[in-house]
């Protein structure tokens, strides 16, 4: 692990007031994401604008979900951890036949292509989640609010 914070002073936004909308998968997915904490800061991914409602695209007919998140800084080495958190969280809430693609927003990361490739290679994801250190980091982000 790095000694100092990678992004010591992130911009923090207020938690948004939710307007109740028709229940659909898009809202469900976004709601479960609200609990995920940033790997570095005691804020949610929404507060850091890593995720917004626009980050999630659901195609119920094709059974596909695309999640596009924006790391707080271009060289964020935590981007893969955030991606792993999103993937792990999806597992519990999305019908199993849905195909989930997770990407960083275009232009938001210096190693965009390699981060995207890693996050969508399920063998690498499975291996990462069996790694005790990474697993702990992911669990802290997912469950520390509970």
């Amino acid at each position, binding site marked *: 692990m790095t000694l100092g914070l990678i992004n010591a002073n992130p911009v923090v936004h207020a938690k948004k007031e939710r307007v109740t909308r028709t229940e659909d998968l898009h809202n469900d997915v976004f709601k479960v994401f609200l609990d995920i904490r940033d790997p570095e800061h005691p804020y949610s991914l929404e507060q850091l604008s890593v995720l917004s409602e626009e980050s999630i695209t659901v195609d119920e007919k094709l059974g596909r979900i695309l999640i596009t998140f924006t790391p707080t800084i271009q060289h964020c080495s935590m981007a893969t951890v955030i991606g792993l958190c999103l993937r792990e969280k999806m597992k519990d809430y999305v019908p*199993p036949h849905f*195909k989930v693609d997770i990407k960083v927003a275009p232009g938001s990361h210096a190693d965009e292509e390699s981060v995207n*490739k890693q996050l969508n290679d399920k063998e690498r994801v*499975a*291996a990462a989640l*069996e790694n005790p250190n990474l697993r702990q980091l992911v669990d802290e982000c997912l469950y520390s609010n509970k």
Partner: protein
Amino acid sequence: MNFAGDFDLKEKQILEGHTDRVWNLAWKPASGVDGIPAVLASCSGDKTVRIWEQSPATGSFQCKAVLDETHTRTVRSCAWSPSGKLLATASFDATTAIWEHVGGDYECVSTLEGHENEVKSVSWNASGSLLATCGRDKSVWIWEVLPGNEFDCVSVLQGHTQDVKMVQWHPSMDILFSCSYDNSIKIWAEDGDNDDWHCVQTLDESNSGHTSSVWALSFNSDGDKMVTCSDDLTLKIWGADIMNMQSGDGNAPWLHLCTLSGYHDRTIFSVHWSRDGIIASGAADDAIRLFVENKDGLVDGPTYQLLLKKDKAHNMDVNSVKWSSMENGRLASASDDGTIKIWELVSLPGHDKLPL
């Protein structure tokens, strides 16, 4: 062989028992023939290996053994030795285990250590004298099989720039093929003079290769063609002059013959070429597809056509497809849904009887 008319892949049985995704399957050689029941091994994210045996009475498969308490993480790959005496299993726990069937039980008789982290694939050569493994540490290891279940590492091959997803020996010659997250396929051969293994060819984008991770490869029965599958959503067929290869001057490069694109719309994880010439693919769109060579277009080199697509073959990604080497038309598939399915390729009635 000609494949005319309509075919269907008929689901014969679902094998349930694994509690996580099933990654890989291996039919035991010389089983399912001469009164010896067919045996299938499967390995899973649940850290176990299961052995399934066909009942001679009912024809259905039953779980005969669960190999657990050895691997501590996902078991990614399994392979029987050519004699069927030993089973090798490669795990994310950085080890490869060797199992022997002794007195009705499968016993772990050897553990191969050396890879820095996840081992992703294991393959025996044709004679069973060599074993290859590969993994996330970007290396390919060649092990010599010695008497008394001893395994001696004879070479550690570096060359891939990313993790190596699969190793596969050529079906008749001691030439090793590896495919990787670095989008390339590498071919390794032994230097006759000093027993050193080295890379003799790299198939990548510069010679019509894949543009994303290469997940798997398989050979036709003659060993003069190879099919590879990738995250770039294509299958590629490669060919080599096998007579030249066998003459031993090492001067038989593998050339790109054709690319099957437009059939898959998500990652292709598995490909297997049957003895009678049918290519099966398993992909992240839950479907199994079968391809055969189209004999009409030989002027411009071989072309392949879709024989059939089995939609929703599984409820989730199809990770492995394996034809039985003994029974023509019998296919096994493994999935993220935790199940294994046994399929039979049948020609639909109302059409001419086909030479399957």
